[in-house]
């Protein structure tokens, strides 16, 4: 029987956010089952369920914000509203790109100003700039009109779950838990849409999920001890997905959803498992890696 401490961690990391996502999807999504109109609430459901998990893991944010994690709800809500507004008003590609650049730069500035007031070492600035730049590029790559690839949700789950392990192993169990919250919400969404609605994540849904993951990766990189290679690898898996998804169809000579999912899982799990192995090895044999 797991201890109450472990049960509490699981409750806050998995059960609460997954239950919140399931309830929200059931409350708002059932009338879209079988309808021609697409379900528009992905971004809202992901943001709201993740916020429920955030409060369970971190508590209420300090007001005014004291540290980077206190900004997370505001950034998540800003992302949700921004992506929703861009979709609602049908902004053009250039406009979307410029606004996303402003959003990513503004969010990174909010998160990093406290760090740079103490630490302006070139290595710190270079790492922060690298992660921010990859965040923007990944967001831009996945901000495509229409439905994304159905396997993106599954890939995103593995990346978020991978970051949960990597963050917890490299100095922040709390950041690992928050990434676990995101993984639990996306997993719930995948199950719902896979079994009930059969729709991939919308543009806004992808944007909101990516915003939360990127904030966690940036904080883990700059305030925790997550290695830069691990952060870049996780972003790269997401960024490369657009190239890999069509490739999976060619290589497996099948456009069946199962084939795409299998290909995505193999491609995601192999590098993440390797990364976790190296991190565990480095913690067991410090100095070797």
């Amino acid at each position, binding site marked *: 029987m797991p201890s109450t401490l472990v049960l509490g961690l699981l409750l806050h990391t998995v059960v609460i956010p997954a239950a919140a996502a399931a309830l929200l999807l059931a409350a708002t999504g059932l009338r879209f089952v079988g309808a021609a109109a697409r379900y528009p609430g992905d971004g809202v459901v992901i943001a709201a369920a993740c916020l429920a998990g955030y409060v369970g893991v971190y508590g209420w944010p300090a007001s005014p914000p004291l*540290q980077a994690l206190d900004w997370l709800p505001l950034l998540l809500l800003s992302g949700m509203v921004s992506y929703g507004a861009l979709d609602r008003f049908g902004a053009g590609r250039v406009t979307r790109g410029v606004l996303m650049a402003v959003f990513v730069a503004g969010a990174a500035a909010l998160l990093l100003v406290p760090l740079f007031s103490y630490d302006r070492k070139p290595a710190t600035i270079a790492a922060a700039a690298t992660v921010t730049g990859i965040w923007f590029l990944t967001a831009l790559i996945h901000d495509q009109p229409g439905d994304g690839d159905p396997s993106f949700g599954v890939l995103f789950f593995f990346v978020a779950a991978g970051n949960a392990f990597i963050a917890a192993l490299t*100095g*922040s*169990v709390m*950041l690992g838990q928050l990434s676990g919250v995101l993984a639990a919400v996306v997993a719930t969404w995948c199950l719902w849409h896979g079994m009930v609605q059969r729709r991939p994540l919308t543009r806004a849904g992808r944007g909101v999920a990516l915003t939360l993951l990127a904030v966690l990766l940036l904080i883990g990189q700059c305030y*925790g*001890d997550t290695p830069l290679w691990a952060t870049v690898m996780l972003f790269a898996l997401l960024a490369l997905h657009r190239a890999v998804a069509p490739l999976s169809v060619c290589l497996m000579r099948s456009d069946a959803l199962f084939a795409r999912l299998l290909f995505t899982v193999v491609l995601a799990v192999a590098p993440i498992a390797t990364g976790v192995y190296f991190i565990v090895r480095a913690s067991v044999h410090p100095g070797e890696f």
Partner: protein
Amino acid sequence: MKSQQLFSAAALAATLAFAVPTAAQAAAVYKVQTGNSNGTFQIDPVHSIALFTIGHLGVSEFAGRFDKVTGTFTVDSAHPGRDKVDVEIPIASLDTNYAQRNTDLSGPDFFNAKQFPTMHFVGTRVEPKGKEDAVLLGKLTLHGITRPVRFRLHHVGAGPDPWGGYRSGYVATGTIRRSQFGMTYLLGGISDKVKLSLHIEGKRQ
């Protein structure tokens, strides 16, 4: 006669053989110096340390330490209102005898040392309680939050050192609640109450 002289010499040698180390040992007995503790003192980081204990899983009092303590204190026994204490401790000097735990505690879950690299205590008032004891009131800034704290203060001793200087030392003990400083993670497994013990030696300026 000759044998008597020899016996006397042997007795004297034996007496000296025992007496010299005994005298040396008597000179090495540790004594608390009770000199004047007034003045402004620079904290000697080599002979100062901050210790803490915190409850772990409801079964033990786990201990850790901060190895670097810097700052100054001023004592004016005639005017206790003029007493001053200013102590700064870098979080990076944390040591809990396990590297991974040091990393965890210094990270975003607890001290968030990259954003809040030091803790800082400023004494605001000393209330004497007897000859060597007092209550030290002040403000502790930890994790970006400043709160009033209260320490029991014990003056250990004061006096000249072997290098021509003059030193004075204190032990301050108290308890804080980490949640009051915004460190609320894992309160179910790691206690809210943290016992602090600050061991300070200062060199008079």
